[in-house]
């Protein structure tokens, strides 16, 4: 096996060597994307199912493109509600799909731990495309790839994740991956959106955005969901923007270039202003390009036949 686990369920416990290997491979694969024929036959004959139990056009398209660039056969299964509502359990759904001869499953689900649950139900390789508020490993990998391209290394770099940490699988995977790769991580947001005991994951915490800006080399600005306000986790979009919104004026107070990232989709004028999102310091579009490359790398590295598993 190319990586130490045959699935990618998260970045928790994934060693630095594996992360480096994925990022190195992704950098090589990225060159394919700009070729006249941006396609290689590597995964010919491999069938990948994209099981999306939650709406996510971006991640699904990114995975689908990555699969197609590698010549895999792809099938999409999209169901916004839980399939339980239709009288079929998740286990039955995936077993049925696997019975159609599937090699790899990319899964997005609203419940944390579902990718792990799938490894107990079926034999296919499982790739987590986001489980609840737990992990979203390929997003963190593409974030790290983009930062590494920018800086050459992640070691000793300071990345601040801003916003709704509590409900963010992007934060969940970024914290783990960045800490593994020797970067420093700080999370910043209103107290209602910072989960308890997060310091034990090896990150710093602040509720003060200026403190975060003074500290950081890069910001990963998370999308703020309107429903969080409805649940009373912060009083208004207006106040959120005033306290935690990334604006040009705010950044100007600090005499340094801070790299700006955002996992998308952006709420312009809420968590980040347009002129910041579109500024030279922003690497948001590189993130999107790298997303395809990273997902290709993960697919390629997990596609190898595990000798032990075969026998």
């Amino acid at each position, binding site marked *: 096996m190319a990586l130490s686990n045959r699935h990618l369920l998260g970045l928790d416990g994934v060693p630095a060597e594996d992360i480096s290997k994925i990022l190195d491979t992704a950098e090589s694969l990225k060159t394919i994307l700009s070729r006249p024929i941006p396609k290689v036959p590597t995964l010919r004959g491999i069938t990948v199912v994209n099981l999306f139990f939650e709406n996510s056009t971006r991640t699904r398209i990114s995975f689908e493109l990555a699969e197609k660039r590698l010549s895999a056969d792809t099938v999409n299964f999209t169901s916004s509600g839980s399939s339980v509502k239709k009288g079929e359990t998740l286990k039955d759904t995936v077993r049925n799909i696997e019975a159609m001869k599937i090699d790899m499953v990319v899964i997005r689900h609203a419940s944390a731990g579902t990718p792990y649950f799938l490894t107990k139900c079926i034999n296919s390789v499982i790739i987590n495309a986001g*489980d609840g508020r737990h992990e979203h490993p390929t997003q963190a990998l593409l974030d790290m790839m983009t930062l590494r391209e920018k800086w050459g290394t992640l070691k000793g770099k300071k990345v601040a994740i801003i916003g709704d940490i509590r409900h963010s699988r992007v934060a969940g995977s970024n914290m783990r991956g960045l800490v593994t790769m020797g970067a420093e991580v700080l999370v910043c947001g209103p107290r209602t959106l910072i*989960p*308890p005991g997060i310091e034990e994951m090896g990150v710093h915490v602040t509720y003060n955005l200026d403190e975060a800006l003074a500290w950081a080399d890069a910001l990963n600005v998370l999308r703020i969901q309107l429903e969080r306000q409805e649940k009373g986790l912060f009083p208004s979009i207006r106040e959120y923007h005033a306290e935690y919104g990334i604006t040009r004026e705010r950044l100007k107070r600090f005499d340094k270039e801070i790299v700006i990232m955002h996992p998308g989709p952006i709420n312009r004028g809420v968590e980040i202003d347009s002129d910041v999102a579109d500024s030279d310091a922003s690497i948001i579009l590189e993130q999107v390009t790298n997303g395809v490359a990273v997902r290709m790398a993960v697919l390629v590295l997990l596609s190898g036949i595990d000798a032990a598993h075969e026998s």
Partner: protein
Amino acid sequence: MNFAKTDNLLLAGGEIIDIKSGKHEKVDIVIQNGKIDKIGAIEKKGFNGQIIDASGCIITPGLMDMHVHLREPGREDKETIDSGCAAATAGGFTAVACMPNTTPVCDTQEVVRFIKKKAEKLLVDVFPVAAITKGRQGKEITEMAELIREGAVAFSDDGSPVADTAVMRNAMDYVKMFDVPIIDHCEDPFLAQGGHMNEGVMSTKLGMQGIPNAAESLQIERDIQLSRLTGARVHIAHLSVREGVELIRRAKDEGLPITAEVAPHHLMFSDQDLVNYDTHLKMNPPLRTPEDIAALEKGIKEGVIDVFASDHAPHTIEEKDVEFDAAPFGILGLETMLAIILKQIVNRNIISLHQALEKLTIAPRRILNLPLPEVKEGYEANLTLINLNEMWTYDVSNSRSKSRNAPYNGMTFQGKAVGVFNRGLFESNFSQ
């Protein structure tokens, strides 16, 4: 189940353990017509009846589990009164109190009567707990006087809290007239909403919505205050948080009529065991932290906790074999409770064997105003035989419960109930 009649029976060579003093006494017991006829040294040779070799076993008053879900009426696919009681006997219990969250809810005389009728011929005494509010909706109190008359021994909306403090106050005021306890599932529904596990570092790591300790301790505090206001007896079900232990300790010091139970799984596992998202470790209250377990142990040692109760909660395989969020709360417990208490509490010298047995036999019956069984001549033969040295492995596929949702599968324990005697019936040498 087929039980043998306890008639003309010699229980030879066992040791009676006195719950009050802990004194062991090696004696023989003759049971005639379901009653303890004679205790002493009995000559086997001349005995004209069945002889059961109890050597190496201790004999205690029959164990009682005051918190089980028998699921009948309504969810007979999960458990029936029959199957639940079979599991109870395998676990060494001669009595259970069953919770009212059935379909229909046990909030009418008919349902109480139905349960009593179903359990009539069983070895196990089944004591229905009726709902505090109609339909367990938390709004109007049930016809408590009539329910008690029909056989309800306590009131609880278990599975749900009574969120409305005024409703709970009325229930306590009303029930105080009959000196019957309220058993409360303490949970602030607003704080706990959407939670699937304990709130803390682990819920952060696992990416799940947590239920904070305060959701439980807030309602414990509320119930204590209401008990002070009304004088009603309140029994705190499945206590799991360290703050709750302190609140109950203080209430008891004050002399308030508060009692509490703890479930074996809250002593055995913590939220750190959830790393594999095992739905067999999903229950409500959720598994808490090692610090909470330590506080519960201290509460047991210092007498804050009165009772061990399993919260036996059967669910079908299909219901539990799903993603964690979608799985129902609750696990099996009747067949393993005694062994877990021996392992986690007695063998670790938190309290002595007879103190633990007191919490498994007399204490629950005292709380529920039930007659207290004793191993004495002239008393009903309501006994449990325990072999403290037997090593056994729990195989959930052989469980007598209709469900299989136990996290203990494959675990090896020391100490096992090997016989139960009650209501003129007995069963010994259980298959598991």
